[in-house]
């Protein structure tokens, strides 16, 4: 008989840049000045895109949209550590991740503008269509990761989730399968502290989401999700681990959803302005800019050029989206099965006959 402590756990937290853009040189990831500027540029581009998408939604030119405001570092930092051949299984709040993964912005608008063609990734880039049902995509990432080991491919799969999704059964099954199969998968959790109106303390009694990984037999880490360098660094380490057969990682990016849940939501109903204001001070984009300025690789002129370029890119994407003709009715039928079965062809033909008058 015995009464003893069987297990204790420790959990790492990583922050490379503090809120004032000061960096801890010992923790600095190996990135060239050009790469640092690139990271910043992607965050700025994502933010400009987000503003444009919100504006297009207000004008009724796209449908419901989920803003990424405040979460750019978590998404860009992670994407920057991946290759196109790696998989990402994003949620509906992942514009910055997808932009950093070369998903054309016109297609992002196309998806939120109600057109499935917007989910088609660029050739050779494994961007899976976004998941609307919360927490369901983690399993797909695990499946793709197990497939990679069977196919002997050096590929990592990233399953995105938020704090709300960490409560879903599917997500917990995904963690469990990942642990058991030692799958080359990264769970990229953006804990933005609000699942629509439900705050994190009502989502889980656990102090962190990262520690949940430990129960499933793999490593979890919490990073400052508003620090693009910390997110990049943690993701790069998890990628290396996955590539070398050392299994999954759960990265909890501690961040904040500065905007409403979606354009159909009004967050002022359930959270205080003071809380939002406090998080605005931790802005991930401003923080990186201060860091670059401190390193003397950034100045006002470069900033202006960058903003102008981002605006041009976003405007061009919006114009391309608006110029894209609506697909024909056949588009909803054509891809349901590998070969269109007779009953479906009949339905399509009947509809076309009625509407096209031939």
């Amino acid at each position, binding site marked *: 008989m015995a009464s003893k402590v069987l297990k204790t756990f420790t959990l790492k937290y990583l922050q490379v840049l503090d809120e004032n853009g000061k960096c801890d040189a010992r923790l600095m990831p190996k990135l060239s000045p050009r790469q640092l500027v690139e990271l910043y540029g992607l965050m700025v581009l994502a933010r400009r895109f987000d503003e444009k998408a919100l504006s297009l939604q207000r004008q009724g030119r796209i449908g419901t949209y989920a803003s990424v405001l405040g979460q750019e570092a978590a998404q860009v930092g992670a994407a920057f550590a991946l290759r196109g051949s790696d*998989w990402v*299984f994003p949620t509906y709040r992942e514009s910055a991740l997808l932009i950093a993964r070369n998903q054309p912005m016109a297609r992002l608008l196309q998806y939120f503008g109600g057109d*499935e*063609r917007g*989910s*088609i*990734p660029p050739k050779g880039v494994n961007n*899976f*269509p976004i*998941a*609307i*049902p919360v927490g*369901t995509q*983690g*399993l*797909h*990432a*695990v*499946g*793709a*990761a*197990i*497939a*990679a*080991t*069977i*196919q002997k491919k050096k590929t990592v*799969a990233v399953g995105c989730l938020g704090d709300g999704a960490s409560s879903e*059964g*599917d997500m917990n*099954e*995904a963690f*469990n*399968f990942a642990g*058991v*199969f030692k799958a080359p998968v990264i769970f990229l959790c953006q804990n933005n502290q609000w699942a629509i109106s439900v705050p994190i303390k009502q989502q889980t009694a656990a102090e962190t989401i990262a520690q949940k990984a430990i129960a499933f037999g793999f490593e979890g880490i919490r990073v400052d999700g508003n620090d693009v360098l910390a997110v990049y660094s943690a993701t790069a380490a998890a990628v290396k681990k996955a590539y070398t057969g050392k299994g999954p990682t759960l990265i909890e990016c501690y961040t904040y959803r500065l905007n409403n849940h979606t354009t159909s939501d009004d967050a002022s109903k359930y959270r205080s302005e003071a809380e939002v204001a406090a998080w605005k001070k931790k802005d991930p984009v401003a923080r990186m800019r201060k860091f670059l300025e401190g390193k003397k690789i950034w100045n006002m002129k470069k900033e202006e050029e960058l903003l102008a370029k981002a605006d041009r890119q976003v405007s061009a994407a919006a114009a391309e989206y608006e110029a894209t003709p609506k697909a024909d009715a056949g*588009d*909803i039928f*054509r*891809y*349901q*099965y*590998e070969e269109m*079965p*007779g*009953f*479906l062809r009949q339905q399509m033909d009947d509809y076309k006959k009625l509407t096209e008058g031939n």
Partner: protein
Amino acid sequence: MNLVQAVNSGLKCAMADDEKVVVLGEDVGLDGGVFRACEGLLKQFGPKRVMDTPLAESGIIGVSAGMAVAGLKPVPEIQFSGFLYMALGQLINHVSRIRNRSRGAFTCPVIIRTPYGGGIRALEHHSESMEAIYVHTPGLKVVIPSSPYDAKGLLISAINGNDPVVFMEPSRLYRAIREEVPDGSYTIPLGKAKVVKEGNAVTVISWGSMLQQAKLALKHTDVDVELIDLRTLKPLDVEAIISSVKKTGRCIIVQEAPRTGGLASEIIALINEQALLSLKAPVSRVAGFDTAFPLYKLEDYYLPGTERIINAIEATVNY
């Protein structure tokens, strides 16, 4: 071979032919599946391709979806169809939609095998026939074999295709019938019904274990029945149904599933649309009841048997 051996043989052929085919599920490895449909697969193909998984059905289907998207051909086994409901979210929200919602950029050929149906004195939740759920889901194909030979050929066809398939195996028939089944690979196309017996007086349409009940019923009646085994429930072989009904002018559909909203209702609607003026009698249904499937002592009350089938045949021809 019996039906479960034929399924096993089909899996072995498909796995030998295509290294992308992998099997996963609860107890499919060392145990060979609780019905032994996966017997010997682990030994022959190794643990990378035959995976015992944690006990989580949604996980099995969701992981299969990811594998399929990444280029494998997963054939998950769900131990009993009553446990497949746990994975309905994955099946309806993802597996069935991926090809369409990505406009063909991604495909999701997951072939879900699961035993269904009553008559084996099983525990609660092991005996339902809920095929209509899957038939109703756009993007899925649904197959239910009624014989060992068909089971193998249909399974290999399902695996060879690139669409998700729910392959439901009548557990009551797993060991009930033996017939010649070739050891090698062969296919039976999906979407093609089989005329089991030609006749002119009335068309009887069925599938799975009810097909065998209908076959038994024929031994007890002199009516010249045309018996059709649907084999694939989606896509339905509309042509086979309509041409037979046009010939006989009468039709009965025998399903084990609950009566309301079942596949029989859809078949009647099709006959209505395409063969109404050929009908000499209302199309009737012999079906399970709209009740919870009873525990095994009472399951004979529930399961349509030869008596109810013969009764329907006689009522229809004497209408």
